[in-house]
Each structure stands twice: as structure tokens, then as C-alpha cells.
């Protein structure tokens, strides 16, 4: 009924995929990538979730409960370590221009064509069951919808003689050919492909969550209701826990380990996670986002499985199809259609990426080396081989899809999806020893990798797919029960008599056992070739190489530029070759016209360019065909490696030395700056000192001159009368006193400024101190006829922490100044002390001529006195105020003057009162 609509929607969906891929490629061509972010990267890894997850997990859960989960928990655990493992794989692949996992292995073990070919064969054969799983799921879901409302999941032969699965196969193959082989070069990122896969990840997740939500909350009343109903049935209850038998836990552990390896080595995961990685930093986000994706897509698996078991009790619907069956049963055809599209997206994403990866392997790592070595293709001849590569890839895609179909037809069609997929997982797990050994152990050799792989693969083939072929009708035949020719210890499911394990765990154990043993054992007994050793070092120590520019040149030989150019043109096309070579020349500052002979670096560069299109092993063969190679001896290689490592060590030392020097020079610069500042300050001080000394000597000379003058008069005139003599002696005495005072003050100031003055801080009652100062000054005041009035607020008592004698010095200085500047008649000086907040404020005011604004600025400088020089110098040294200011400053206060010319002057100082003074 909805069949026609279904086909139309499916085709429209595939059209959307093409549009997205086209858009992605367009954006990449403009340099505005839409996939260069960690979210798309993590989503593109969602290609891990195929029809297996979409349909198969529910089937698995309906059959054996929680055992569908390890397949997703394994990747979660290994994702924690991605920052080490995956980042290393990405770095190696980028530097070596790796194109497939087979290329990776071949490249690591000395660019071995045989190893690349072997990995390709294993990958293709291993993935065939996985492809058949997708075909199975898509055709079954298609049939279920097509025949609705008759519910049955078994695909049947259609009247035309061709069955649904074949149609699905051909349709998908055509799609994969169109989609996957649009470009030749495989090292450039497939931006459109990645964008489409990320989109498919969103579609399948949304569809699955939609059906899960529908089943749990619409068909049932939430998880409580669903699980509650399940608990009524002992058979269903069993699914919610592990049986007590250790078998369950053992199987759980094996499946977790297996899926850890699968997520690293499945060709499509390698393609997405390693080859399509745009930035190593994206691994950070992906290593928690991708596990989160897996968790979310699995939330509703168990509820759907239980709902299916409760709803379809006794009906012949395959549990793998509950996802689709439940919405159909509920009459929600629109949702069913959406679910079908989700399943289609899960299957197509897997088929697209796997066929791209596998067909690239077949063309680069299997067919090309064969064609080159068998001289069917001769690089020396004219012709465009890019087309040959593409043709090989297209044929390979169709062939792989047909093999999937054949496997689907031949094997037991009632086998569950998960059990089919696990066979493929076990196959790719065979890559693990040689791969992981290859990136962490320099001792692994080509021979070890080859023999280990072959041994593991043979055991796998015998214990899993071959055994599966022998249980076609669902009932095990004599081969399985009794072993070949009745040899019991060769029974495929009980090899060497091992029992108590499920078939996958059993196969995995034996295959990995022989694989690891052969790899390690043979590696230890064989000598690696020169090239192998070089590659081993480049892979294992990849993080020690800054970039491919300091790659070790384990090669010496000669080639003409012309020969290299024509070789590149044949595989890459004339335009691209021209561009690549020009880039290279530009970077090296070379001129092709003047260069006839290619050096080792250029040859290596050409090989890498070629590797990007046809894989490392093929590129090696192709290059060898135009290059006269000189074999290096082992001694020479060791010397080169040694030199390289020495150079690396030197450069590292140099780098750290440079950093140290930079650090030192920065410190030096800072010190110099400080020194310069200090020097400037010193020079300034020196200048001040010179000024000071010249002023002091000048000031000293004045009284000295008058002392000397009057002494001379007295000396020269012994007959001078008594009256004049007395007056002269009086002058001499006064000038000597002034001289003494001046010297004392200079010394005092010097002490204050150098900080050498001694302070004895005590609690000082300011009212008392002011009283004493006024009394002491009263003699001088009376002499000039000046009245001194005081007004002190001494309630509460004004107590400050200060040096009593010093403050007294300040008060006396201010009072004597005030008296000095009072007019001859009617002079008045007032002293006030009061509290203002936390401050004591003392004001000493006179009614003299005042101080001009200009003088106010300078009277606190040394030896500067106010007043008009023409009106005679006032008495004083010019040091009193600077000393007073220093003292007040020392106790945290301020000294300043307020004055209006003609109206007297007021000197004010403040001192801080103790904060806790609350009396």
C-alpha cells in the first residue's frame, strides 16, 4: 500500500545525500570547509552504527538481554585512550600520505606490496558478511513495509524471478559507485562524503529515538510500565540481568575487547577517524562526543525489545524487525516510513564508506602493484592511468556488493544480524597485532606481520564463516559436530577441544593467539630490511619528527626530472603535476629549466605525491621503474640514522639553549632598565647634592664673612673705643650663633633625609606640648610686643603617637616664624588645635604681611625664604620649614600654608589620631 511512496521517499533521501555531498565539496573547493570542526568529525564516526545497531541490537536484546551493549562500551573505553592511539595514527597517516589501512600496514613494513595485498584480501573477505548484514536488514525492512499489513520478515522471491535482496544490492552498488568514486585522489579529504555521513548519523539517531519514544511513552506508559510488565514474565525477566553462569560475563568481556579493536581497525572507522581527520585537536571532543552518541542511540534498545516481545508474543516476526514492526502494528505508517529511512541511512552510510575504503585498497594495494609488477601497466609508456584506477575501483565496489549478496544467499538467512556482524569484527581484529605492534614496537618485521596475519586469518576463516556455511539450515551438520573426517579436536566451534566459550569468543581467542604468537615469534627471528627499519623508526617515533621535511633519506639514487614528471603526469594528470611541481620548486627556490637531475628529496617528494593517489607500495614500485637506485649498506643506514638522531638531539639542545638565552636576555634587559633608572635617580640626587652644597657654603659664607670682617677691624684697631668694640663683639657672637644653628640644622636635615634620624615615639599630649611651646616662645614674643593666644580643644585629650621633642621642634619653628613675621606694632599670633575626624589639626596664624602665592610654593624648599629680598633678609636659615615638613611627614601628617597677601599667614599641620581612640 505504501510501497510506492516508500520507494519515492527512499530515492528522494538518496538525492538529498548527493546534494549534501555536492555542497560539501563545493565549500571545500572555496576553502570554506563545513566539516572542519570536531562536531562533524564526531558525527561522522557515527558510521559505526549501521543496520546492526539500528535493527540488530533490538534483536540481540530480545534474544539475550544486555549482551548487545559491549559492542558500544568497548569503543567508549578505547575512546578514552584516543588521545594517544588515534592521534598517533592520524599523525603517521598525514606525514606518510596514507590512503587506507592496508596502505598503512604496507608502508610500516617497508612499503611491502605483499602485505598491502594481504591486508586488502582480509579486509574485503572480512567485511563481506558485514555488507550482507546491511543487505539483509534493508531488504527485510523493505519487504515488511511492502507487504504491510501482512507481517512477515523473510524476504522472498518476487514474481520477476529476481529477489528483493538482489535489487537492494544492485541499487546500493550503483549508489556507492556514483557516490564513492567521484574523485581520483584519495589523500585529499572527501569533504562531501564526510558531510553526508554526518548527516546520516543525525537521521538514524533521530529516527531511532523517535520510535523508541513512541514505543515507550505512547504504546506503553513509560519505562516503569514496560519493565513492570516484563517482570511478570520469567522469560523476559531473564533478559534484564546476567545469568549467574560465568559464560555471560566472559562473553561480555570478549565482546568489549573485540569492539575496542573493531573501532580502531574497521576500514570505514579508519577512513573516518584517521584519514578524514582535519585537525588532531578534534580528537579531544570526539573522544567524549562519540561515546555519548553511542549511549544515546542505545537508550531505547531494551525498551523496544521488551515491547516487541510483549506485543508480538507467538507471532513469527523476526526480533530484528521489532523497530519497524511496532509502529506498523500501532498503525502509525508515517513513523514506520521514517524508521525505514533511518534504517536505510544506517545501512547506506556503512556501505558507502566501506566500499570507498575497500575499493581504494583493491585498486591501490592489490591491483596496481600486480599490474605494475606483471608489466601489464608500464609506467615508461604513454597513457593515462588515472582512468584505470577509477575503473578498478568501480568494478571493485560492484564485486564487493555482489559478494555480500552471495554470502547472504548462501549462509543461514535466519541468523541474527549481530551474529553476522561479529564475524566481520573478528576478521578486522586480526590487524591489531601487526598494526599496534607496528606503531609501538620497532622490532616488528614484515615477515612477522605477514605470517601472523595469514595464521590469524586462516583460523578465523575456519572457525567462523566456514562454520557458518555448515549450519545453513539452522541445524549443525556432521562437520560441525564431529569435525572434518571425524577428527574431534578440529571441530570448528571447539578447536583443540576448547569448550565453554561461545563461537565468537572461541574464534577470537584462537585466531589472535596464533596471530600474536606468529607475529612476535617470527619478528624476533628475522632481520628487518633497511627500508623496514627506516619506516619503523618513522612510525614509532612519529612525534619526534617535526614534520615530513626532516624525514630520513634512506635512499640514494639518480633520476631525471623529465622521467619523474612524465611518471607523475600519467597518474595524476598534467595540470595537477604541473601545480605540485611548481609548488615544490617555489618552496625550494628551484628553477626547473636549470635542473636536470632529481635529488633524493625530489624523488621522495614525487613518491609521496604518487602515494596519495595509488598507495605507498604501488608508488614505490612505480618510482623504482624510473629511478636508478643505489642500494645502501646496513652500515651506511645505521650511520645516517645515527647522524639524524644526533642532529635531532643537537637541534633539541640548541632549541632549549636558545630558550635559556632568550630568557637570560630578557632578564638582562629588565636589569638594564632598572640600572638606567637607578642611574638617572643617582644623577638627579647628585645634582641636588651639588645644589645643596653650593647653597650651604653660600649660606655659611655670609656669617663667616661678617665674623671675619669685624674680627679684622678689632685686630687692626687695638685702640677702638669700648662701646664700638662691644657692638662688634656682639655682632660676632650673633653671627657665630647663627652659624652654629645653621650647621646644626644642615646636619639635622641630612639625618632626616638619609633616614638615619633617631625617633623615640611615645604618646604625646598635644595640649601640654602646645602650652610648653607657647611658654618657651613667650620671651621672644614679648621682645617684639607680640601677643600669643591659644585655643586647644582638649576634651577628650588630644593624644598622638609621635616623638615629643621633634613635634616640639616643629611647634617652636612655626611659632618663631609667626612672631618673626608679625608687624612691629600690634602683632598677634593665635594657636589652635582641634580634632577633625581621625586627624588632629594644629593651626598657627599671624597677622603679618602674608605670603605671596609664588612664595607659598617655595618656602618648603631648602634655603628658600619668603619675602622681598630688597626689604632685607628675614632672620633664619631657610631650613626650618623643610625640616618641620619632613618631621610631620614622618608621622603620617601634612604641613602646609594658607595665606592671603596683606592678611597674615596660617601654617597648618595635621597628625593622625589613633583609630581606637574613643575617649
Amino acid at each position, binding site marked *: 500500500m505504501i510501497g510506492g511512496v516508500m520507494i519515492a521517499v527512499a530515492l528522494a533521501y538518496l538525492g538529498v545525500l548527493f546534494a549534501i555531498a555536492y555542497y560539501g565539496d563545493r565549500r571545500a573547493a572555496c576553502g570554506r570547509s563545513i566539516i572542519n570542526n570536531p562536531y562533524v568529525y564526531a558525527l561522522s564516526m557515527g558510521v559505526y552504527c549501521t543496520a546492526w545497531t539500528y535493527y540488530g541490537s533490538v534483536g540481540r536484546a530480545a534474544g539475550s538481554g*544486555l549482551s548487545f*551493549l*559491549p559492542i558500544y*562500551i568497548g569503543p*567508549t*573505553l578505547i*575512546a*578514552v*585512550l584516543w*588521545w*594517544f592511539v588515534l592521534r598517533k595514527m592520524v599523525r603517521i597517516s598525514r606525514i606518510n600520505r596514507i590512503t587506507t589501512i592496508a596502505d598503512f600496514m604496507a608502508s610500516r613494513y617497508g612499503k611491502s606490496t605483499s602485505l598491502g595485498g594481504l591486508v586488502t584480501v582480509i579486509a574485503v573477505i572480512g567485511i563481506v558478511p558485514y555488507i550482507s548484514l546491511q543487505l539483509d536488514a534493508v531488504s527485510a525492512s523493505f519487504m515488511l513495509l511492502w507487504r504491510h499489513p501482512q507481517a512477515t520478515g523473510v524476504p522472498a522471491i518476487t514474481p520477476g524471478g529476481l529477489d528483493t535482496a538482489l535489487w537492494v544490492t544492485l541499487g546500493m552498488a550503483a549508489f556507492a559507485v556514483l557516490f564513492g568514486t567521484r574523485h581520483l585522489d584519495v589523500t585529499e579529504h572527501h569533504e562531501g562524503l564526510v558531510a553526508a555521513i554526518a548527516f546520516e548519523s543525525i537521521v538514524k539517531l533521530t529516527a531511532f529515538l523517535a520510535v523508541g519514544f513512541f514505543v515507550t511513552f505512547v504504546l506503553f506508559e*513509560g*519505562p*516503569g*510500565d514496560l*519493565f*513492570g510488565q516484563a*517482570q511478570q514474565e520469567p522469560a523476559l*525477566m531473564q533478559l*534484564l*540481568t*546476567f545469568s549467574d553462569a*560465568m559464560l555471560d*560475563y566472559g562473553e*561480555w*568481556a570478549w565482546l*568489549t575487547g573485540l569492539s575496542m579493536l573493531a573501532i580502531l581497525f574497521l576500514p570505514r572507522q579508519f577512513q573516518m577517524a584517521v584519514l578524514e581527520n582535519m585537525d588532531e585537536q578534534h580528537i*579531544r*571532543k570526539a*573522544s*567524549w562526543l562519540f*561515546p*555519548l552518541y553511542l*549511549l544515546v542511540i542505545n*537508550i531505547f534498545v*531494551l525498551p523496544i525489545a521488551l515491547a516487541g516481545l510483549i506485543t508480538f508474543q507467538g507471532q513469527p516476526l523476526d526480533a530484528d524487525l521489532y523497530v519497524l514492526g511496532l509502529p506498523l502494528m500501532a498503525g502509525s505508517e508515517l513513523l514506520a516510513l521514517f524508521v525505514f529511512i533511518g534504517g536505510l541511512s544506517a545501512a547506506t552510510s556503512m556501505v558507502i564508506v566501506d566500499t570507498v575504503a575497500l575499493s581504494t585498497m583493491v585498486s591501490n594495494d592489490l591491483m596496481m602493484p600486480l599490474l605494475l609488477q606483471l608489466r601489464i601497466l608500464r609506467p615508461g609508456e604513454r597513457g593515462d592511468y588515472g582512468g584505470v584506477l577509477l575503473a578498478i575501483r568501480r568494478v571493485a565496489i560492484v564485486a564487493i556488493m555482489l559478494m555480500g549478496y552471495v554470502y547472504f544467499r548462501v549462509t543461514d538467512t535466519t541468523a541474527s544480524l549481530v551474529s553476522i556482524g561479529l564475524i566481520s569484527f573478528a576478521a578486522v581484529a586480526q590487524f591489531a597485532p601487526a598494526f599496534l605492534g607496528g606503531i609501538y614496537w620497532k622490532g616488528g618485521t614484515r615477515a612477522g606481520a605477514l605470517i601472523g596475519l595469514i595464521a590469524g586469518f586462516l583460523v578465523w576463516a575456519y572457525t567462523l564463516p566456514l562454520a557458518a556455511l555448515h549450519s545453513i539450515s539452522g541445524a549443525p551438520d556432521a562437520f560441525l559436530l564431529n569435525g572434518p573426517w571425524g577428527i574431534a579436536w578440529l571441530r570448528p566451534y571447539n578447536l583443540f577441544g576448547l569448550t565453554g566459550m561461545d563461537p565468537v569468543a572461541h574464534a577470537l581467542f584462537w585466531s589472535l593467539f596464533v596471530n600474536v604468537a606468529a607475529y612476535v615469534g617470527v619478528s624476533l627471528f628475522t632481520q628487518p630490511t633497511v627500508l623496514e627499519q627506516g619506516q619503523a623508526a618513522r612510525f614509532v617515533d612519529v612525534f619526534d619528527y617535526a614534520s615530513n621535511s626532516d624525514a630520513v633519506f634512506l635512499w640514494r639514487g639518480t633520476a631525471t626530472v623529465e622521467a619523474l614528471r612524465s611518471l607523475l603526469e600519467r597518474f595524476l594528470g598534467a595540470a595537477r603535476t604541473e601545480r605540485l611541481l611548481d609548488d615544490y620548486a617555489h618552496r625550494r627556490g628551484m628553477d626547473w629549466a636549470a635542473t636536470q637531475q632529481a635529488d633524493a628529496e625530489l624523488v621522495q617528494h614525487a613518491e609521496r605525491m604518487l602515494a596519495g593517489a595509488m598507495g605507498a607500495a604501488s608508488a614505490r614500485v612505480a618510482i623504482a621503474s624510473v629511478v636508478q637506485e643505489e642500494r645502501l649498506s646496513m652500515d651506511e643506514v645505521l650511520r645516517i640514522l645515527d647522524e639524524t638522531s644526533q642532529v635531532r638531539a643537537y637541534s633539541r639542545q640548541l632549541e632549549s639553549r636558545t630558550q635559556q638565552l632568550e630568557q637570560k636576555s630578557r632578564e638582562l634587559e629588565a636589569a638594564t632598565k632598572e640600572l638606567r633608572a637607578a642611574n638617572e635617580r643617582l644623577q638627579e640626587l647628585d645634582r641636588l647634592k651639588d645644589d645643596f652644597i653650593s647653597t650651604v657654603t653660600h649660606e655659611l659664607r655670609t656669617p663667616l664673612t661678617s665674623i671675619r670682617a669685624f674680627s679684622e677691624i678689632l685686630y687692626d684697631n687695638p685702640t677702638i673705643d669700648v662701646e664700638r668694640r662691644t657692638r662688634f663683639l656682639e655682632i660676632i657672637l650673633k653671627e657665630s650663633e647663627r652659624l652654629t644653628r645653621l650647621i646644626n640644622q644642615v646636619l639635622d636635615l641630612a639625618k632626616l633625609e638619609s633616614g638615619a634620624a633617631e625617633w623615640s615615639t611615645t604618646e604625646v599630649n598635644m595640649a601640654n606640648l602646645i602650652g610648653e611651646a607657647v611658654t618657651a616662645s613667650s620671651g621672644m614674643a614679648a621682645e617684639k610686643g607680640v601677643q600669643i593666644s591659644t585655643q586647644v580643644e582638649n576634651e577628650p585629650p588630644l593624644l598622638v603617637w609621635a616623638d615629643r621633642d621633634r613635634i616640639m621642634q616643629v611647634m617652636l619653628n612655626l611659632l618663631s616664624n609667626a612672631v618673626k613675621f608679625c608687624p612691629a606694632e600690634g602683632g598677634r599670633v593665635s594657636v589652635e588645635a582641634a580634632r577633625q575626624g581621625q586627624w588632629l589639626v594644629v593651626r598657627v596664624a599671624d597677622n603679618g604681611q602674608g605670603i605671596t602665592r609664588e612664595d607659598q610654593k617655595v618656602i618648603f624648599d631648602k634655603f628658600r625664604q619668603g619675602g622681598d629680598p630688597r626689604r632685607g633678609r628675614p632672620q633664619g636659615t631657610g631650613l626650618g620649614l623643610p625640616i618641620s615638613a619632613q618631621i610631620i611627614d614622618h608621622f603620617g601628617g601634612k604641613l602646609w600654608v594658607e595665606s592671603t597677601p596683606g592678611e597674615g599667614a596660617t601654617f597648618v599641620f595635621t597628625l593622625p589620631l589613633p583609630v581606637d581612640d574613643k575617649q
Partner: protein
Amino acid sequence: MPSGVRNQWLVVIFALGCLLFSFPLLALFNHADLLFGVPLSVLYVFAAWLLIIGLTFLSHEQRN
């Protein structure tokens, strides 16, 4: 977080994950009793799963 410390954290999280998802601890929570409407065994697996994801998130995304 300094890269050396983060790397050590990642290894610790991996080890913790292996422990949480293996025999003795799985058996400890192997009951079908419902908690929040979900069997304890299922709840445990998903909670442990989320914990590992959360820890990985923290060790990668925390700046200091």
C-alpha cells in the same frame, strides 16, 4: 590542566572503565529490581557509561 597530568588521568579513567564493566562489579548490581522504573542492572551499566563519558569530557575540556 597540564598535559602530563591529563594524560595520566586518561589512563586512570580507562582503567576505571575496564573495572566498572567487568565481572565482580557487574555481578554486584545484577538485580532486576526496579529503581526509578528501570532495572538496577540496566541503570548501573548506563550510569557507569555516563560516568566514563563525563570524566573523559572533564579531562579534555577543563582548562585549568
